[in-house]
């Protein structure tokens, strides 16, 4: 949590330490839930690795497979999300143009993030199928051609 702010001296681990990290006292139910979450993330990772090594199932349904660079980035994103406790996406799928989309369904909310093959990214939030918020970002640096 500390690392996401601009604290300098008082960031955890330098000046302050936890006396008793809560994870040491996780209940069996919590540990079971944590294992289930890890398993579900692994399903997503396996799906992405599957596209990377053998995109034929996508080609058979005439869907352009995601580009390798996008898959590799999506794998890094999943690793980061898992580390920080991001809630699991309910679906991961090709965007039909070489990119990858992640979708979350939390009725009446729907959200998605799309990593496009051109290095652009878009996130959107809907409530009852109506747009609420959206944003764009770059996930790949833009290089200036000389």
């Amino acid at each position, binding site marked *: 949590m500390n*690392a*996401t*702010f*601009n*604290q300098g001296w*008082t960031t955890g681990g330098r000046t*302050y330490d936890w006396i008793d990290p809560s994870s040491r006292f996780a209940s069996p139910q919590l540990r079971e839930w944590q294992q289930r979450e890890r398993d579900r993330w692994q399903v997503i990772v396996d799906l992405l690795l599957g596209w990377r090594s053998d995109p034929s199932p996508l080609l058979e349904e005439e869907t352009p497979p995601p580009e390798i660079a996008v898959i590799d980035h999506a794998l890094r994103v999943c690793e980061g999300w898992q580390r920080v406790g991001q809630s699991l996406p309910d679906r991961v799928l090709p965007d039909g143009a070489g990119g990858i989309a992640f979708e979350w369904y939390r009725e009446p909310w729907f959200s998605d*993030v799309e990593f496009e093959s051109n290095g652009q990214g878009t996130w959107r*939030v809907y*409530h009852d199928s109506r747009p609420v918020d959206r944003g764009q970002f770059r996930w790949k640096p833009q290089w200036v051609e000389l």
Partner: protein
Amino acid sequence: MPTELPTFDRPPLTEVFLAAQFAPLPQLRTAHLGEFLSALGPTWSPLPDAPALGQTREPVDSTPEWLLPGTLEIDLRTGTRLRAQSAGADRMLQVENGWLALNWAGGPGRDYPRFAALSAEYEQQYERWSCFLAERGLGTVVPNLWEVGYVNVFPRGELWNELGDIVGLLPRLLGSGPGSAGALQTISGRWAYLIAPGVGRLQVFVEHALRHTPELGECVQLRLIARGPVREGFGSALWQGLAIGHESIVQTFAELLSDKAKRHLGYRP
């Protein structure tokens, strides 16, 4: 909101920081960051590099926080974060491709310089940064997020001795807890408040921690950090945001403390 903010003669501050997130500039390199910090002069010394925060977003509308901040640009190569510390070790300037932050460190013998003074210092550094970039043709600073944070520390022995006493220190945040669960060993908590829709968010963290400086000892750390979008993308909205964040922090800090704690800290309403 009242125009006069409460003050404390002896605020238990260990750190205050003001920061602005800006859209990363495509041609800015770590070498430029180093050059910028070097221009602070010989009385400033470099600190170890830190990992870049990257770009983040603060949910300030009614949309639920479905995506954790800073998780979309995990691999965006904004480089590293460079930091420098002033001669008296009471100021830190942090810069990365996407953030500029000024930190003040409290400690024995150090008076808190007050927000107005810190804000003016930060504005100077921000202007210097903008000029630095413009002179080198590296682009324009377009701020998109403001951040202001106050870190307070309550050492054991001052206002609390046993953890259960902390309820008395922050009565509006904490309750007495269950009596049958056993002896309270440690606490931590986070609260997030929407300052106003579209304006900003105040997060309050309470953490029981062990600190190493100035001496080893238990403490309770109370952090209040406000953030909000700079939607207009130009300077005055940034300063307005920081002022709003500061106001929210001060008002909330005063409200959270017990009367006893306020007296101890020299509260002036």
